[in-house]
């Protein structure tokens, strides 16, 4: 389904032969990929493969030094995360930017609170914020008993999805998820994968960074494989199997041990 959608719409975000050097260090080179409406791009790679550099370029934290970055078909160089955010490119970092002791709805609107009234009598629209939080979370398939509970009481997967829902509500067209499943158990990781699918079905582009092929494969439409700062290729789901992907990522030497480990998992 999503392949057809992606080919009809222009990609929201596309990189062509993009690269980044920090002084004399080549952090990333020759990477091409794209993410369209209702599409999930999985970025896979082991530690040090260049995943972080890739996110930093997409999110506007660092400008690229080689190649092209296109948003809605227009070439751009982001000078700050704000510029990326204004184009609807939102990044959900691993620490999620939440305050554990504060209620879910206060976290949802933190920094962009709704208010009503004038001048010194301007106060929070508590009812409105509670209602919107509940609605937006319901759209993600999360039914919270109580949006007044501290966000710290939610499970890791739920917190992740609140952060995604928040990015979506505040205008994100593409959500970049930095290793959302890496700190989670199997079940919770499954929950997050479900929310990624949910976001995709609502027409968002998702860039899902992970080092786990088993998390990426079920939900991804395209797979960008990175190794030591270079691209091993950008594959459609039909072009690659999970075994091939694992093999590419792991490389020859460790393969037997890894295959053994995965077979038992």
């Amino acid at each position: 389904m999503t392949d057809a959608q992606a080919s009809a719409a222009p990609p929201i975000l596309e990189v062509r032969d993009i690269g980044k050097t920090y002084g004399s260090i080549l952090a990333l080179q020759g990477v091409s990929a794209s993410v369209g409406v209702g599409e999930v791009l999985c970025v896979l790679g082991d530690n040090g493969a260049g995943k972080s550099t890739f996110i930093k370029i997409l999110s506007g934290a660092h400008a690229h030094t080689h190649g092209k970055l296109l948003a809605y078909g227009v070439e751009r160089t982001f000078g700050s995360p704000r510029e990326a955010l204004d184009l609807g490119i939102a990044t959900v970092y691993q620490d999620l930017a939440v305050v554990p002791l504060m209620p879910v709805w206060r976290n949802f609107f933190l920094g962009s609170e709704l208010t009503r009234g004038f001048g010194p009598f301007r106060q929070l629209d508590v009812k409105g914020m509670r209602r919107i939080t509940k609605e937006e979370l319901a759209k993600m398939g999360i039914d919270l008993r109580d949006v007044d509970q501290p966000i710290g009481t939610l499970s890791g997967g739920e917190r992740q999805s609140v952060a995604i829902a928040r990015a979506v509500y505040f205008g994100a067209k593409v959500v970049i998820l930095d290793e959302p499943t890496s700190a989670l158990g199997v079940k919770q990781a499954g929950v997050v994968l479900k929310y990624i699918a949910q976001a995709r079905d609502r027409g968002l582009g998702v860039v899902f960074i992970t080092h786990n092929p088993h998390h990426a494969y079920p939900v991804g439409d395209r797979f960008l494989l990175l190794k030591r700062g270079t691209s091993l290729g950008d594959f459609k789901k039909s072009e690659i199997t999970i075994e091939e992907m694992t093999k590419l990522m792991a490389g020859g030497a460790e393969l037997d041990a890894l295959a053994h480990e995965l077979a038992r998992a």
Partner: protein
Amino acid sequence: MTTTAPAVTDERIKPAGLIITLLRRPEVGAAVAALAIFIFFSVSTTAFLTPAGVATWLYSASLFGIMAVAVALLMIGGEFDLSAGAMVGTTGLIVGIVTTEWGVNIWLALVIALAIALAIGAANAFVVMKTGLPSFIVTLATFFILQGVNLAVTKIITGTVSIQGMSAVPGFDAVKVFFGSSFALFGMDVKISIVWWIAITALATWILLRTRSGNWIFAVGGQITSSRQVGVPVMKVKMGLFMTTAGAGWLVGMLQLFDVSTVQATTGIGQEFIYIICAVVGGCLLTGGYGSAIGAALGALIYGMTLQGIVFAQWDNNWLKAFLGGMLLLAVLVNLYVRRQAGVRS
């Protein structure tokens, strides 16, 4: 392929009972303790519940309460201010000296004292935020500086360690209406500071729970990096909090000065920890991000009732300190228990 969105409810979350819901409010513990102490002294002493008795402990509680509420806001925002007590003396001395020694207009003197207090508060915030040093250390320094300056400067200018003759200053009675007057209510002689205390507690509660600034105070105290990431103006919030505490110090300084028309150079010294204790008894966490203005006001009420109750019961005054320590320990333990019950992982 379409993904349906079933409502996700986790069977491991058991519905919180009424008790837990109540215990989630930070001020509940203090309210229970305040009630118990009220009943105890009402039964065990004859003077406690008389109109004169009530007026006395309410007045006592009000002066601590105003400061405790301001300190609570600051603590929720994740900082301490140990200079808050000395500030009460500093502002009182400034007004006393410039009016009695130099003949400055009394209204102007009030403004000068407020401006100096706010500047010191802003300086505290600036140093804390720019250096990243703990506010405990920075304001400890401010505390000692103010304590020394209060005594030394007062001695240089007046030759003594107190200000006399305030009531002879022109305009004293007009200002006294705002800071030192009292009115009759239910047979009590109610001091104006009690009105200030209630008004400030109400205002602080409204700000904390119903305004953007309040949301930001909880956020900067709870998780400063997250707050920055979502665009909360961290510096402004902390600056505002330190200045609020300093401003509250000025208010209490004026309330004391115009009530008794004199001020000692040692006024306020040693009170800074009582404000913090009141805030903690009222449910503030020492680590920031959690607490309540009403709780802090109740903490001050507990302190005021005990302070005067011990006098009425004719016990040795030293029991107060022991009681205070016990109260603090109990409050911290209750807070810990509550946080575990509420299931807050942080």
